[in-house]
């Protein structure tokens, strides 16, 4: 895959996050360029979700800076960050279970003008046709794969420039994982940049342009996906080769 970065969308510099006395991130730095798919891989507890939550404004960093489109966003409230065009599809999908699929999608477009919502929905259904059939059902009746699709569709409803996905493959069958990742690539081709957090390094390396490897709160390796596929460290620790 070619790298199509013609400008930096998100830049994170020396990001430090602590939960009480415990330091979850020890100053990590990375960038996501316009049009890119960037992946953070790492084991459980490496700080991947914490990174996304800090960028989304859900946890407050204790050091470093986060810029989106050149503007500082660290310390801004979460809802203001979404408005800038940066959304997160959270780990575990977090659907609003008691609400219908339609209501979930409408919530995704919370800050968008009412007039464009049905058009955005039609566009989102091109990637997720199954959701269209389920519009009136409550989210609680969907299967795990459908919930992941709902979470991604909900994220797209905000028409983000950058969408962050936290463990989209978690708990899904191999066929569904393939499907989800091909949709992610498709979304990227349509112009949305992607920051992906994954434990499934094999799939992550296939869709990503560039990869950062996170271990215990630090970036230990980074490079293009092709480079990291050949790295002995990645091969032994993440690809099981």
């Amino acid at each position, binding site marked *: 895959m070619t790298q199509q970065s013609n400008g930096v969308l998100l830049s994170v510099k020396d990001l430090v996050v602590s939960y009480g006395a415990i330091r979850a991130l020890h100053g990590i730095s990375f960038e996501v360029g316009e049009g890119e798919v960037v992946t953070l891989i790492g084991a459980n507890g490496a700080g991947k979700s914490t990174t996304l939550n800090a960028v*989304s404004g859900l946890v407050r960093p204790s050091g470093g800076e986060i810029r989106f489109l050149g503007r500082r966003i660290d310390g801004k409230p979460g*809802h203001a960050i979404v408005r800038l065009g940066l959304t997160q599809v959270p780990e575990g999908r977090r659907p609003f279970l*008691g609400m219908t699929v339609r209501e979930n999608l409408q919530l*995704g477009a919370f800050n968008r003008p009412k007039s464009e919502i049905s058009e955005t929905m039609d566009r989102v259904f091109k990637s997720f046709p199954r959701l269209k059939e389920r519009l009136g059902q409550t989210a609680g009746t969907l299967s795990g794969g459908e919930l992941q699709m709902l979470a991604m569709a909900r994220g797209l409803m905000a028409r983000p420039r950058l969408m962050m996905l936290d463990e989209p493959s978690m708990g899904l069958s191999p066929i569904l994982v393939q499907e989800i990742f091909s949709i992610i690539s498709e979304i990227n081709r349509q112009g949305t940049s992607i920051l992906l957090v994954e434990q499934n390094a094999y799939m992550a390396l296939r869709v990503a342009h560039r990869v950062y490897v996170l271990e215990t709160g630090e970036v230990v390796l980074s490079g293009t996906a092709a480079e990291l596929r050949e790295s002995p460290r990645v091969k032994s620790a993440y690809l099981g080769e």
Partner: protein
Amino acid sequence: MSYFLQQLINGLQLGFVYALIALGYTMVYGIVKLINFAHGDVFMVGAYLGFFAMANWALPFPVAILVAMVGCAVLGMVIERLAYKPLRNAPRISALITAMGVSLFIENFTNLNFVFGPAPRAFPRPFAVRTFNLGGVSITNITVIVFGVSILLMVALTWFVNSTKTGRAMRAVSMDKDTSRLMGIDVDRIITITFGIGSALAGAGGVLFGFAYPQIQPLMGIMPGLKAFVAAVLGGIGIIPGAMLGAVIMGVVETFTSAYVSSTLRDAVAFGVLIIVLLVRPTGILGRPGREKV
């Protein structure tokens, strides 16, 4: 039979007023998991605002209700911002104790002579009471108005919560605050709006209460507030239709106890119902175990 129907109507009238208070308890609990013990006192302030609007400023009754609703909405939002918001991340017990403190403050502050004063006041009747006789059951125009206004407000609230963008955001925030933030919802703003709406309903309830049982005083919010809280728990706290159902049950049970047993046992039976429901169905009548909604 007609005595029974008569008592049923009296019970429903009381129940509807309780419902207007109970809705605020349940909405606030649904969204911030706080029992806002100052809510009964907001109801009392609503009754006084209605009183001043009619007796001092000579405003018509519908306008008096609006004045009370707007005034109470502002009061509720101010209480939330000053007393509860700073405790958003504190242990729940801190907020609960603060709520009791706010309640005591409002009761004692309004009891001062230069505020409302401790002396009870007669709530003005904007028109003569007329009684209609329907097959042995007498219904006053007051009852008709209490029914009409409460039902109108409950329908309006249900529509608002289920069909508007802000209502959808309220439900989302009550389910999952962080995910709501990821949707771009300003969670603090939605919480403030929820306090405003709940308090406005209590304000309307206060005016209707003064209108139906025409004597008001600064401690008048305690008992109805407590009953409405019980009603909200009875129906399943955090669930809007539950609050309405629980309140109607409370009003009817209380009135039937006075009518058929003894009026001194009225409160004991009303709270007894709560104990039984909590023993049999701890999440309330409409509550589902392990799940909470607005």
